[in-house]
């Protein structure tokens, strides 16, 4: 499953997550209205082994990574609910510059 559609949840990758994923985004969980963040991450990892190996521990983000829902609210809670059409940004937890 890949390519952006109106359905599903779009996962965007930034920083190391982008490098591990080898792409900038993926659409997952098509056909579901609402799903857990952890399930979104698992679905992305199933298609992107590089991401799975380093950024995720099951459905949880590993140390050093953070998610953001629709470029607004940050979270690392796998139980946060995500809606169809949402964008999940996966990025480095440290914003230092």
């Amino acid at each position, binding site marked *: 499953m890949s390519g952006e559609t109106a359905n599903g949840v779009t996962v965007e990758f930034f920083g190391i997550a982008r*490098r591990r994923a080898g792409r900038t985004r993926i659409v997952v969980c098509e056909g579901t209205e609402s799903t857990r963040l952890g399930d979104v991450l698992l679905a992305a990892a199933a298609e992107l082994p590089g991401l799975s190996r380093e950024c995720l521990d099951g459905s949880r983000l590993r140390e*050093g990574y953070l998610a953001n829902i629709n*470029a607004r609210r*940050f979270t690392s809670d796998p139980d946060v609910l995500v809606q169809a059409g949402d964008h999940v940004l996966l990025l480095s*937890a440290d914003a230092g*510059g």
Partner: protein
Amino acid sequence: MASVPGYHGGYLRIDLTDRTSQRVVWPEGVLRRFIGGAGLGAWVLRHETAGEIDPLGDQAPLVFVFSPLVGSPLTTSAKFAVLSKSPLTGRINDSLSSSHFAIAGKRTGHDAIVIVGSAEGPTTVVVTPDGVRFESAESEWGLSSRETGERVKQRLNAAGEGFQVAAIGPAGERLVRYATISHDARHAGRGGLGAVMGSKRVKAIAVAGDRRVEFADPGRLLEISKDLSKRSLGPATAKYRELGTVDNLVTFNRLGSLPTRNFQAGVFEEAASLAPESLEADRDRTRASCAACTIGCEHIFPLADSDGGVRMEYENLFALGPLCGVSDPQSVLAASHRCDELGLDTISTGASIAFAMECAERGLVEIPGLRFGEGEALLRMIDDIGHRRDWGDMLADGTRAAAERIGGGSHAFAPHVKGLEIPGYEPRAMQAMALGFAVGTRGADHNRSGAYEVDFSPDVDRIDAGPETIEPVVRVEDEAVLMDSLILCKFLRGVFEDRVAGMAELLKPVTGWDVTSEELIETAGRIVTAKKVYNIAQGWTPSEDTLPPRFFEETLVEGESAGARLDRDQLSAQVEAYNLLRGWTAEGYVTDERLAELGLA
């Protein structure tokens, strides 16, 4: 005072006017209460400053401070702090730099070097365990800090003594109020320390020696050093190792928090052209690291038509790129390189030019060719600032002073707090950071307040930050001041499960102190308060703890932070709450009782 492991027991005070020096022994308890780096420097600066002073006057002290960790095997510990009253802000200024100068400086046998007075002509100050000597720097005057460092090292190291050099460039000589002090192309960058050094006619300070400190528990220190090095190579630092901080630009743009065109927007439509892969052009970047560092965060990008390269960080990329509307990668790389050569703080340089670009577009000034997006004009203006030519002479005093001269309401969009130009975090889109900027003792600053971490957390809504913001903003400021005092690189933050407890564990085998997290939190509060007290003595008033009118009066209209702006009453309430949490009055003054509690009376 009995010798404390990790320290030499005193500082060296050099008077340039009468060419004398003296050893000053630390009073009992000072080291444990202020640790080193920025903390110990705040104590020294307060101790060495009598009344309200001219930061470019003879009496102004310039303070180089090492730390107890320097010389240990702890990764990222080869750092030093430089402090003075800032000629840009009129408030306390502490900037950090790294690498071999810290190690060689501490081997002179001193925990700090304080320079007062002024020399008759261009001078290199040479410090060894045998004493101080003053050499003419006439032949280096006018050179870049890089060239100066190379020449002085070549001359002094003929005898094989291992000298390391910190120097100023042409901007420091001309008293540009945001000139840097540079060692091996790493700058103590913010607040105009280079101008303070230039006002004393000191082109360079060279240090070398063989004096090593004892550590309290060398075996344990080696053990935790190995563990820290191992952790420093984990996922928490992968971003810095593999991508560098330049990678922030694309992320911040997506979040609508990338300062663009003098903070008129939070999104730069051409951000992709400044992504790391675009900066590399047809040649790969290389990596470097400071002495005693396992991370290696420095990413050096190739310059066009040159064999050389330039270290790029997010801050110089944002300031000389989107903030000025410039999207051509080679223009931004060249601009950063020129700032390095002249010895200019890239944030204040970019912000001053961006401010002038907006003034020009509004018709407030007529500066030929200076418009947003014009890379050639950016490069010309950098040279003019560094040499104080034409309009560059005015911009060399920073945006606050320039706005006072230009008038026409330009103060509303002059991007500074307390005179220090705002770094690359759009305050309306990162409102915990806005509070951190407002209360920062050295002005708008992302290194002394790490409040962007709070925005980048589940704890707050970054574009509508409420009262829940206050405690974490204080907490990350405390953590930052401790890291700046030990000194450790902030890029290690993520490797500690509990940062304060982790720092306490590092201090124990170095100093022998049975220090706890609780003690370190109190130490952090003491150091922040000492800086505040210094500012009050230099004329600080509560009205300074705010942001420019633009951020309250103009709403972001594009990107993911569209609709965001700051609320003046809300920020004022947050500043008051911050002050009270610090144990100060609601206005931000420090009572005699609080001073006594902290041992600052």
